[in-house]
């Protein structure tokens, strides 16, 4: 197979960091090639070099064996290399067609959208993409938006597609559809795809070859047919990652959390949660699996006291807390890890000490005559930093300086430092690298072992199945089933949270 795109000896230094260290990359044509690595391994920098956004300090790029130099993305585009950005690079108010032609050289003067429509429609047919070109982007699902990005690159004549974490914002079925479409495109039309990701299942299921980066260096180059997930993890992390203790997380004790027929409205005023009931004992983990938008976010908020329940009851240790405000719940032992790490769970401009204070400002142990006990909070923050392995120079660093993994460890540590009776964790490992993910999961298990009841809401089936003593797939505001650990295999749960919807649609 001919090597289409190659990079040789690419070195890139940023002030104080060696982002890429003599990186060699060979991408054979007509294949999906994965670039795998943890956050900060240099994946993004390498892609930016290939797309002309960043100039390397040393090394050269070769296209079909000929040396090329990309001074800007425009150069890369004229050589047939297209970047498929994450979907926030689309104009939500514009139509699909307008987004696709945006920036195309032929739309300098008067727009001939009619011609463009014909061409783009032909492109859609050729690659088997079903998109309404007149629809506005804000009306589309994330999966469809990703296709708009891909079409945009193809319309500009790209034969090599660089995809930056294309599945990170997609639901599992959307991600599977995207990868299948990409494979068809690559096999049938000879397009070459370079996929940047830190998701192992994506690499294993969809890619032909993989180049693994760690700390700016290539540490592995192999065919996925010869690779295993464990092997790739070892390459990425540089050592084995302890999977954490397996099996049930200890003998369940007393009932901690009882939820009866709980219902609430979503942001748009329609019923989001339509009657959910369950009970959890000390030491149990409930994994709630669902495609985003099926009521799980609202469930987390109702349990945390951030959203009023329209019906039903929540009991904590036998006490009715349905109408209690959030602070009262914190004091009683409810802990909440919101999905939005930077928007809801922390304040970026605050120091870590002040962020810790956000869950202690009502606690008499840290408030003296109405004033916060800063020294005590600083000591507490230091304990969290040490205990949860947060990599940060000092407790007064601002939260926004922390990487996603470190911030999540901090948030987790803050919540767990209150020794909660009930822990609600919403997408606790989303966007984290392998190491941080393993750490967070181990901590959740440990919290359960320590006697907490853990409600884990996740879209990651493997996570749900690995951690949950009980698994409840959620669909349109109701639990589809209540499965014990032994009944919950990824296929069943996946079908319940996503596959069922297809059956119903077909029946209609």
């Amino acid at each position, binding site marked *: 197979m001919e090597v289409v795109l190659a990079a040789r000896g690419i070195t890139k230094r940023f002030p104080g960091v060696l982002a890429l260290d003599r990186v060699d990359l060979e991408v054979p044509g007509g294949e999906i090639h994965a670039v795998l690595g943890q956050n900060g391994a240099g994946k993004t920098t390498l892609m930016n070099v290939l797309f002309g956004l960043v100039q390397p300090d040393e090394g050269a790029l070769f296209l079909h064996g000929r040396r090329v130099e990309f001074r800007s*993305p*425009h150069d890369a*585009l004229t050589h047939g290399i297209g*970047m498929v*950005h994450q979907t*926030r*690079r*689309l*104009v*939500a*108010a*514009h139509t699909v067609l*307008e*987004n696709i*032609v*945006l*920036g*195309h050289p032929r*739309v*300098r*003067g*008067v*727009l001939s959208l009619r011609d463009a429509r014909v061409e783009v429609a032909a492109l859609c047919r050729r690659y088997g993409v079903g998109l309404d070109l007149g629809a*506005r982007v*804000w*009306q589309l699902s994330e999966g469809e938006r990703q296709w708009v990005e891909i079409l*945009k690159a193809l319309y500009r004549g790209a034969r090599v597609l660089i995809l930056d974490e294309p599945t990170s914002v997609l639901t599992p079925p959307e991600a599977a559809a995207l990868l299948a479409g990409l494979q068809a495109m690559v096999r049938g039309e000879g397009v070459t795809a370079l996929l940047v990701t830190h998701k192992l299942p994506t690499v294993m299921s969809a890619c032909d070859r993989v180049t693994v980066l760690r700390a700016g260096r290539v540490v592995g180059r192999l065919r996925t047919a010869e690779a295993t997930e464990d092997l790739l993890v070892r390459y990425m992390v540089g050592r084995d990652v302890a999977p954490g203790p397996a099996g049930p997380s200890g003998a369940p004790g007393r009932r901690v959390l009882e939820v009866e027929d709980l219902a609430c409205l979503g942001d*748009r*005023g329609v019923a989001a949660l339509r009657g959910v009931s369950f009970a959890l004992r000390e030491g149990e983990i409930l994994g709630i699996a669902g495609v985003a938008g099926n009521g799980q976010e609202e469930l987390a908020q109702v349990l945390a006291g951030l959203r009023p329940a329209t019906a039903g009851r929540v009991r904590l240790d036998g006490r009715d807390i349905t109408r209690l405000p959030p602070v009262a719940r914190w004091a009683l032992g409810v802990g909440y890890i919101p999905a939005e790490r930077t928007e809801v769970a922390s304040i970026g401009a605050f120091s870590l000490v002040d962020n810790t204070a956000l869950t202690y400002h009502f606690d008499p142990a840290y408030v003296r005559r109405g004033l916060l006990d800063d020294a005590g909070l600083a000591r507490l923050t230091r304990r969290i930093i040490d205990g949860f392995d947060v990599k940060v120079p000092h407790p007064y660093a601002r939260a926004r300086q922390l990487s996603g993994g470190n911030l999540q460890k901090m948030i987790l540590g803050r919540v767990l430092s209150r020794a909660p009776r009930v822990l609600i964790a919403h997408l606790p490992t989303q966007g984290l690298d392998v190491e941080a993910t393993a750490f967070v999961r181990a901590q959740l298990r440990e919290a359960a072992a320590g006697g907490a009841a853990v409600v884990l809401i996740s879209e990651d089936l493997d996570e749900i199945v690995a951690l949950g003593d009980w698994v409840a797939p959620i669909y349109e505001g109701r639990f589809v089933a209540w499965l014990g650990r032994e009944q919950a295999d990824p296929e069943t749960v996946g079908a319940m949270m996503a596959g069922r919807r297809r059956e119903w649609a077909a029946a209609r």
Partner: protein
Amino acid sequence: MWELAVRSLEVSAILLLAALGELVGQRSGVLNVGLEGLMLFGGTVAFIATQATGNFPLGFAAALAVGALLGCAHGFFSITLRGDQVVSGMGLWILSFGLTTFLGSPYAGPLGLGRIESPAGLPPFFVLGVLLVAAAWFLLYRTGPGLAIRSVGENPAAAEAAGIPVAAIRYLCVVAGGVLAALAGAAYTLSYNPVWNYNFIMGWGFVSLALVFFSMWNPWILLAGASLFGLMWQLSLSPELVLPGILSRYVWRTLPFAITIPILVVISTPWFRTRWGLAKPEALGQPYAKG
């Protein structure tokens, strides 16, 4: 009656020109709340230049130049320095208010030249305004550069990724907005009411600003809104003409604002958004930092 209509269209033209420039600027994502100041400046400079030379075209040229200059200043603060657009616009207004009072006071009084001819009995600036509305609509919705302008105002990062120079587009739009606002001011002091007096524009800049929101950033609705607001203003000068003794002129003058507020409320409801999407350019008011 005909006289009232023509007179009110003259008011409409001034509101329309200023608001159209602001609309284009806001479409590119830059809010200029200093519209009032730009109109004061354009009107004052045009008045002084015309009175000094007795030459109307020269007066207009001076207004356009000063409008472009003020547009550049607003662009420099809000695009290059990425300052707060509201602060920059307010600063521009206060500066213009003070400076034009200082510059214009010695010239207080009538222009003392003949009136500008109106072909076919139609107010010339209204005709110009309608033509510019058509041109702006065509530019925004039927051309590549228009798509670029709208993209820059909605999602500058997406525009940049598509190879569009965000800062340059924004500068162009803001300067065009400044030019049109100054032209509107000149139309006031040279044609509608050729007299210079203290704070002659009387808040029309803010009415124009409200008009842009009223129009939901659509040039044709802007035209309709400007016609309506112009009529209401002219009526407010003699409200007894229509509804004798019911409302004082000051109440009439608040109507443009009173109408705009419910419209703003409606377009921000979930109902409207799910039906029509966001009318407001998403990146409006937000400085864009590269990368």
